[in-house]
């Protein structure tokens, strides 16, 4: 049975485990119909021209994990940003782990989607926000919607800010020969509220894992959201990440995506600016080797006037790795005085590595500033000579220059411990030894 049929037929089994009377279930039923009709996207579709899901569809993924696999703290410790100084929502093979988690209801809700989708106290928020910004016809998003049951639920009321950053961690243990996960998360940040979130998918074995996630983020007026995606998974883990962000006036949302690992990673990052004086920022660092593949698809829809968007993606591709950057910017006719900037710079370290980069601008307003640029290049020879003339051998000099190239993106990371973590990771990936600073 191919993966699509398996998923569609699993829906009935899924229904045995959820409340089919809940209004959310109507949304799920609609969604599975859409997926059944459309199936997995193929390379014939423009948006999937450079990323093939064919190989993954041949794998006999388990749709539901059989049993809970216990993990010890020592197995996962290194993946946490901080032992105490962060809230944690942790899932093991898709199942919530209360042992590893630190949730809260103290002024803010940092808890579980499964609770939000079933308990009456969350009904109001779910009614207003659930599946409101996620696509209703993109097939992988609807597939996730159909099976939406578990994930992170974060609600930050007006004028609030959680005391510490929130880590959302999804571990897979290899309990199944191959496992498909479909986490569904909702983040609502009300007026003048602020939140910092770090998200990570991590497989602990070399068994195949496919994650098809959907995250909806709503930033109300003056809200500030910092979202960090740390993608440094093993070579048998694939991720299709669908993130939808709705912003209201004067909100500031920044998404950083660090793609250093995995087998196949597809990031669909969508911003909708429903207000004025909005700032949307997307930054990315991609460092790949082996046969790894990462596809960054961004969309910024400028719907109202006087807004800004900034995109800065940097990539270093080695060995047989492949990368895609497709940045779509839509500026509606009334969205005058829009400032939209997009930059994608790449370095190919190997003859066999490839990058496909494509800006896609659809501008219907006439008083706007939009710029885009993409480069695919080698390292600067003068800079190389400078380093060598100081006694740094060519190989190390190249690594140091690549480090400088990638590291530049980290300036906007506002969590110091995360910044130094990523910094070290970049250095490690590029074989740069870091010392100390005065």
């Amino acid at each position, binding site marked *: 049975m191919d993966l699509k049929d398996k998923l569609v037929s699993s829906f009935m089994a899924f229904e045995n485990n959820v409340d089919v009377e809940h209004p959310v279930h109507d949304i799920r039923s609609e969604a599975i119909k859409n997926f059944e009709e459309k199936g997995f996207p193929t390379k014939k579709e423009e948006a999937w021209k450079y990323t093939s899901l064919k190989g993954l569809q041949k794998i006999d993924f388990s749709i539901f994990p059989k049993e809970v696999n216990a993990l010890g703290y020592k197995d996962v410790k290194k993946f946490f940003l901080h032992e105490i100084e962060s809230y944690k929502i942790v899932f093991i093979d898709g199942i919530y782990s209360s042992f590893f988690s630190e949730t809260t209801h103290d002024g803010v809700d940092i808890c579980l989607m499964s609770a939000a989708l079933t308990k009456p106290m969350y009904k109001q928020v779910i009614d207003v926000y659930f599946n409101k910004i996620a696509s209703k016809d993109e097939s992988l998003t609807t597939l996730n919607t159909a099976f939406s049951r578990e994930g992170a639920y974060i609600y930050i009321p007006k004028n609030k800010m959680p005391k510490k950053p929130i880590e959302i961690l999804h571990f897979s243990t290899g309990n199944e020969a191959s496992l498909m996960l479909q986490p569904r998360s909702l983040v609502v940040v009300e007026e003048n509220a602020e939140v910092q979130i770090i998200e990570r998918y991590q497989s602990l074995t070399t068994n195949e894992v496919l994650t098809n996630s959907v995250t909806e983020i709503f930033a109300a007026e003056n809200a500030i959201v910092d979202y960090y995606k740390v993608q440094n998974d093993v070579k048998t883990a694939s991720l299709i990440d669908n993130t939808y962000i709705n912003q209201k006036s004067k909100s500031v949302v920044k998404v950083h995506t660090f793609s250093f690992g995995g087998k196949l990673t597809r990031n669909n990052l969508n911003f909708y600016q429903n207000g004025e004086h909005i700032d949307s920022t997307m930054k990315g660092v991609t460092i790949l080797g082996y046969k790894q593949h990462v596809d960054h698809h961004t969309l910024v829809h400028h719907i109202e006037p006087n807004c800004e968007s900034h995109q800065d993606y940097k990539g270093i591709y080695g060995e047989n790795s492949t990368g895609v950057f497709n940045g779509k910017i839509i500026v509606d006719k009334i969205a005058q005085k829009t400032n939209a900037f997009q930059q994608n710079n790449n370095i190919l370290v190997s003859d066999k590595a490839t990058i496909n980069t494509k800006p896609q601008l659809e501008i219907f307003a006439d008083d706007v500033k939009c710029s885009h640029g993409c480069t695919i290049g080698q390292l600067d020879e003068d800079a190389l000579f400078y380093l060598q003339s100081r006694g*740094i051998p060519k190989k190390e000099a190249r690594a140091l220059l690549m480090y400088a190239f990638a590291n530049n993106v980290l300036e906007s990371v506002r969590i110091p411990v995360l910044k130094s973590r990523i910094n070290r990771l970049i250095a490690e990936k590029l074989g740069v030894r870091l010392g100390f600073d005065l």
Partner: protein
Amino acid sequence: MLKINNLHAGIDDNEILNGINLEVNAGEVHAIMGPNGSGKSTLAAVIAGKEEYEITEGSVVLDGEDLEDQAPEERAHKGIFLSFQYPVEIPGVSVTNFIRTAINETRKAKGLEDMPANQMLKLIREKAELLDIDRKFLSRSLNEGFSGGEKKRNEIFQLAMLEPKLAILDETDSGLDIDALRIVANGVNKLKSKDNAVIVITHYQRLLDYIVPDFVHVLHEGKIVKSGDKELAHELEDKGYDWIKNGATV
């Protein structure tokens, strides 16, 4: 220490150096002067080993060893240091981390262990003081957003840290105000010893008031057309380069 014999070199079939002869011994300071385009910076780059330049004739010999086939880093390990006219900006790598990498790579090439961190810190503090550099400066990204003066001071700081046998200062005075010039020159003078040598490349005489040369050479169209003592620099300052250019053909 350094012997340049009948050196012809250029880039892409374009010959820039046309037979240079120069001998620099330990303890000496040589100034190389000349009009724009005379080949001054090319000479510096060729000695330091910039790959795009090709030696078509003659040789550059350091302590009896021909440098032609040696990579820039190997030359650095043997004690050649080039202070750049336009130092490169390297965002995300601090001055401290950069110099630490340079020193430890040089030590590695000599079969030595990394310099212990406390020793490195002590050395950094000492040299920073010598050049009137404050600590904040050292944790900034290398040359990123530095003023012209800061860049040059940083070059001399690296020189002080690496303690080369032969330092080549390529237009170190350009873009410096008089105070910065004094600090930089002072730094160079303090580092001078009977065991090392300095080649100062400059268009103007003004730096040579502070770093006093033993020999002055005038470069024109890729050749040394006149050599003398420090008085020659003053003469050039008074008369300009035209008399050299005109006389050079004789």
